[in-house]
């Protein structure tokens, strides 16, 4: 019997800690790690009598993100208090933003490329600004303690629209990947999922195919990698399907993901929205923006990853795969563009970057900026090869040298005598020499064993220490043998 088929629907809530120097409503440093409770003050500890003050660059990060996500901007926007009790929340409320049109950004969308090269659009419901909570830690003897270093760190929440546009674990992954890239290109967030500065929280539901209504949803937390986003959703959908097929009723709940055991577990049954008793925070005056200010922010947006990827493919002729690799980080993409601007052939520059350069960087555990290689080095190298001054094989040797020393490829070629021999006369001389030293091989060739041709070419290359132009050697060996 065919099992009933279900449609999976996934809404995504992404929390991103913003790259500011200080917290959202106080001037404690916004950093990761360090000794617990060393970046706290009366405001972020929620002590009586303290007053929050809005961090302007944090607001700007959210506005720029909202613009990049094609959102409508709330020209007047207020903060609300979201009331609930939990030990990591010192004030017993979180400052957040409530409502449909009050969040800094709403009603937007993100276009992106999927893993298989297709294009997708996911609608964005809202982009709002709030503050992070403290961190609960477990102590020996079944005790719990709180570190408030993270409390009050500016946190942006990006929520997809309803009903969901995402219907598979892969789409959820593609969406998360692209959103992370966007935030990194905007400089809004460092995107470190393993440190929790970017947290993807999908809400997952399944419904029998053809049903209008969505099923009961669960929210997944603790997904600290893209892999976890994908496998967490896949397992959750499976768990729900089994439960429904057993005839169980699903509960609306928050479940944590245990990556090691590939299992989810109940964290808490969700409180209903009304229970948060949202109301405007009287401590924080409304934010009001002028048209001019917003348009200024829009005009100053950098080229975004999707547009860049399109341009790399359409204008520079790169493959989808190559473009995706080059876009992996803004610094890497910038490196590529500078090398091309300095005369490097786009395809060649791309091959060197995604090939030998990546390989050597990985080996050395270094980033491109921390290495001795600059875009000028790559442009110079591709020029040497394109003009026939050196062969691709010698290029590899030269590049390794460049990587170690930071010297210009042209200088290395000149000083180390790496220049390719392209003078037909001198190559022919070596060819004749090799043929006379290998009469046996020449005899075999003339008997019809054409395979020895390769051996003779190899001998010539060896004699010239790899400096001879390989195509010319090939041609001249044939010419001399057929003579």
């Amino acid at each position: 019997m065919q099992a009933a088929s279900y449609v999976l629907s996934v809404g995504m809530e992404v929390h991103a800690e913003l790259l500011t120097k200080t917290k959202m409503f106080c001037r404690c440093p916004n950093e990761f790690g360090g000794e617990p409770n060393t970046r706290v003050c009366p405001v972020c500890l929620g002590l009586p009598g303290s007053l929050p003050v809005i961090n302007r660059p944090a607001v700007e990060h959210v506005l720029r993100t909202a613009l990049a996500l094609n959102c409508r901007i709330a020209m007047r926007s207020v903060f609300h208090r979201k009331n609930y009790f939990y030990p990591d929340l010192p004030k017993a409320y979180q400052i957040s933003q409530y409502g449909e049109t009050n969040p800094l950004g709403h009603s937007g969308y993100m276009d992106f490329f999927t893993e298989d090269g297709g294009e997708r659009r996911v609608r964005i419901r809202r982009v709002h600004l709030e503050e992070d909570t403290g961190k609960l830690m477990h102590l020996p003897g079944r005790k719990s303690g709180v570190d408030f270093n993270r409390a009050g760190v500016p946190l942006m929440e990006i929520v997809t629209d309803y009903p969901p546009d995402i219907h598979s674990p892969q789409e959820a992954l593609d969406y998360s990947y692209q959103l992370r890239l966007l935030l990194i290109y905007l400089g809004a967030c460092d995107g470190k999922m393993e440190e929790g500065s970017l947290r993807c929280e999908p809400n997952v539901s399944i419904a029998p195919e053809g049903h209008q209504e969505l099923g009961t949803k669960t929210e997944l937390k603790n997904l600290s990698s893209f892999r976890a986003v994908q496998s967490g959703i896949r397992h959750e959908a499976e768990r729900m399907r089994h439960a429904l097929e057993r005839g169980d009723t699903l509960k609306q709940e928050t479940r944590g993901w245990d990556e090691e055991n590939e299992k989810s577990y109940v964290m808490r049954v969700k409180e209903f929205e009304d229970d948060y008793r949202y109301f405007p925070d009287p401590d924080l005056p409304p934010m009001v923006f002028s048209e001019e200010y917003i348009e200024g922010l829009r005009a100053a947006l950098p080229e975004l990853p999707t547009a860049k990827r399109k341009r790399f493919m359409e204008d520079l002729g790169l493959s989808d795969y190559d473009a995706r690799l080059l876009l992996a980080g803004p610094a890497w993409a910038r490196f590529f563009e500078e090398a091309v601007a300095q005369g490097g052939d786009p395809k060649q520059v791309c091959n060197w970057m995604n090939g030998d350069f990546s390989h050597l960087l990985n080996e050395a555990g270094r980033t491109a900026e921390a290495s001795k290689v600059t875009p000028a080095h790559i442009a110079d190298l591709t020029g040497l090869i394109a003009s026939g001054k050196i062969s691709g094989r010698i290029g590899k040797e030269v590049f390794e040298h460049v990587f170690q020393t930071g010297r210009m490829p042209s200088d290395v070629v000149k000083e180390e005598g790496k220049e390719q021999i392209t003078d037909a006369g001198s190559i022919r001389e070596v060819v004749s020499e090799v043929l006379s030293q290998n009469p046996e091989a020449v005899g075999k060739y003339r008997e019809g064993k054409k395979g020895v041709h390769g051996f003779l070419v190899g001998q010539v290359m060896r004699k010239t220490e790899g400096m001879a132009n390989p195509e010319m050697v090939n041609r001249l060996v044939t010419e001399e043998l057929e003579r």
Partner: protein
Amino acid sequence: MAISLDELKHVAELARLNLSNQELNAMQSDLNRVLESFRQLHELRLSGVELTSHSVDSTSVWGEDEPADGLSRSDALEAAPSAEAGLFLVPTIFE
């Protein structure tokens, strides 16, 4: 628009208040008097009045993003009922 006993119990639970039956009864009549006052306010004609959520008429008050000293850890923890290993001790939570 009176508050029912069930609604009151729910609100008490959200506020983590453990109220006796006697306290619940007293609270119910207190809250109903408050609600009655609001009902009277509702009778006012306010259609031309702009919605206000803030008592002070200022907007867009920004702080600069420059770090400043907060509290030392010992000062921060001093006010806590109990602390250990640099952390504020709280009721045991297991997730």
